[in-house]
């Protein structure tokens, strides 16, 4: 493994883990956009720090980003508190104003003598290959501080994320804890600037959290899982960008975590779209099939010939169902040997008759229970 790849890999993993953990709280507190605004707000900070100090050393630039990020978040807080502007609008305003200022400053710096070599544009989309050991140390320290604070105050952060009003009634300094969480978020954003850049930073915060939420109903597990997904995406993204030629690291990380998110949205048990649809269909089809068997049984019972054919229009008329719709339910019943199909008419086979009898019996027992114990009116079909 080359020195560069090693640095990129370590940096991406650290960013992924801390971003996932802090992002979980932002996600649950519906502050996903805030992370985005903070990242964009950091850009002018980087530029101003460069203009003031004239160095490319990461520490002063990141301090500038930190100051600008904090300024941006305080700005949002004040706008929401003192004007009638709602939070989403305030976030949008701060994001665009700060980012616009950042781009203007960046263009100016590029035009200054020697500015072309400033390398500041790496903060736009990130350039993980420029990470050096010094950067990694800074990332490790800041990331560790953020994670330790979250672990120590987990109970408190959970409380203020779920029910801040109740937390306040217990005497917790809710507002200050919220500001602390936001500051931690700013720190992670700053940590990630060199790797992912301001534009895509929000994805490393929110995507792992959204994916993790799909798989669990416990906050502690969700936070850990988000960290794991973030770290894994960082590792895979870093390796992928290093092996294929000239693929940018930050966007690769984002693509990997987005892939995890898509899989989670579709396939996670309970919350996954696919299982939910499948469950709905299963229940619906079962009800329809049982109704079909029951209808045929009752028609046969009335006519006195249990094995007789029943025409499809008369069956459809019973529940106002379309022809195609019904055939769709008949098909599996035919396949299972419960129904025999003639031309435009059906009849119950022997095993179909037994199954229909079971369904009808269950239904009638249930009816008796409902009408005698709960005094509900009888099903009009059973009367």
């Amino acid at each position: 493994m080359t020195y560069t790849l090693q640095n990129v890999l370590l940096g991406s993993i650290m960013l992924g883990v801390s971003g996932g953990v802090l992002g979980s709280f932002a996600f649950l507190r519906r502050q996903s956009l805030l992370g985005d605004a903070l990242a964009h707000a950091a850009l002018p900070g980087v530029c101003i720090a460069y203009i003031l100090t004239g160095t490319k050393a990461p520490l002063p630039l990141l301090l500038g980003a930190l100051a600008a990020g904090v300024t941006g978040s305080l700005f949002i807080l004040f706008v929401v508190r003192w004007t009638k502007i709602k939070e989403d609008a305030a976030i949008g305003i701060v994001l665009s104003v700060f980012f616009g200022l950042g781009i203007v400053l960046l263009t100016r710096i590029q035009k200054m003598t020697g500015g072309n070599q400033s390398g500041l544009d790496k903060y736009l989309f990130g350039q993980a290959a420029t990470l050096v050991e010094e950067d990694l140390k800074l990332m490790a320290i800041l990331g560790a501080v953020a994670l330790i604070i979250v672990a120590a105050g987990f109970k408190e952060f959970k409380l203020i994320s779920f029910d801040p009003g109740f937390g306040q009634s217990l005497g917790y300094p809710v507002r200050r804890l919220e500001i602390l969480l936001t500051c931690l978020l700013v720190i992670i954003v700053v940590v990630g600037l060199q790797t992912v850049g301001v534009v895509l930073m929000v994805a490393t915060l929110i995507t792992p959290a959204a994916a993790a939420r799909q798989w669990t109903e416990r906050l502690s597990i969700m936070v850990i899982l988000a960290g794991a997904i973030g770290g894994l995406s960082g590792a895979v993204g870093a390796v992928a960008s290093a092996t294929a030629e000239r693929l940018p690291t930050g966007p690769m990380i984002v693509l990997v975590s987005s892939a995890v998110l898509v899989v989670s949205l579709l396939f996670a048990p309970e919350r996954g779209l696919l299982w939910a649809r499948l469950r709905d269909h299963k229940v619906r089809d079962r009800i329809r099939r049982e109704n079909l068997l029951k209808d045929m049984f009752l028609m046969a019972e009335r006519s006195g010939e249990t094995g007789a054919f029943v025409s499809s229009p008369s069956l459809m008329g019973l529940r106002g169902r379309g022809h195609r719709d019904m055939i769709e339910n008949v098909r599996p019943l035919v396949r299972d040997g419960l129904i025999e199909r003639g031309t435009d008419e059906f009849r119950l086979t022997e095993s179909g008759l037994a199954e229909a009898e079971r369904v009808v019996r269950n239904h009638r027992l249930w009816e008796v229970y409902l009408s005698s114990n709960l005094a509900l009116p009888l099903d009009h079909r059973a009367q």
Partner: protein
Amino acid sequence: MNGSSVTEPVGAESIYTHAGEPALEVHDLTVAYRSQPVLWDIDVALPEGRLIAIVGPNGAGKSTLLKAALGLVKPTTGWIKVFGAPYTQRRSWVGYVPQRESVDWDFPTSVIDVVCMGLYGRVGWLRRLSREHREIARACLDKVNMAHLAHRQISQLSGGQQQRVFLARALAEDARLYLMDEPFAGVDAATEHAILMLLQELRGRGRTVVAVHHDLQTVSDYFDYVVLLNMRLIAAGPVSTTFTQENLHKTYGGRLTVLSKAADALFTQKETEPE
């Protein structure tokens, strides 16, 4: 934990006169949100050991009164005392049941975890909950007939069950005074009954309940003391003498729009003392 010192409730008078400090004392309270007055000059003292309903039309400041008592909103003028001291010194004496809609019920946590939050005040900063704490929480859930759902995800609860979880969480606070924001709102009949039983049990143990209540039909059945509020205090006292047609008419019938318009006009012109 503080309940042991409370004298048993005997008759209404004995509580009022002998229990010493009122459970909740509101003095000269005015609250305004962004130059819009919500509560005006409220003066009232609520006795201990009663089930007290705060009744009034929408926008009458009922929730605001509770929130002011809890220090969640800052009064423009005036103060509120809980058992003779500011709320900050009486936190552990007070339990709070917020409105059910005030939180996101899709939050990834379980019923028992939410109830445990009622114990955080006792557990203290940065400490973990012990097995005993979980036992207490479970006992509180049992009191609202929810023990069997302790490990259910809160996203799977019905409205009535959500309300019971919040009540259990307040019970876990083991308070002397419970402030409840619309505990009966939008719950099924079974939950309504369960809440009623719980309130009566609390009163039996000498606890005080102050609840924002919307259903005028049930006030006299569920509560024994009532505060009628419409930005100003209309009346406060035992249900039998205070919950009268006349007072209700003053609270609701005085054409709310006219009343608040008049108040608005007075406020914006900064005329002499209103009324």
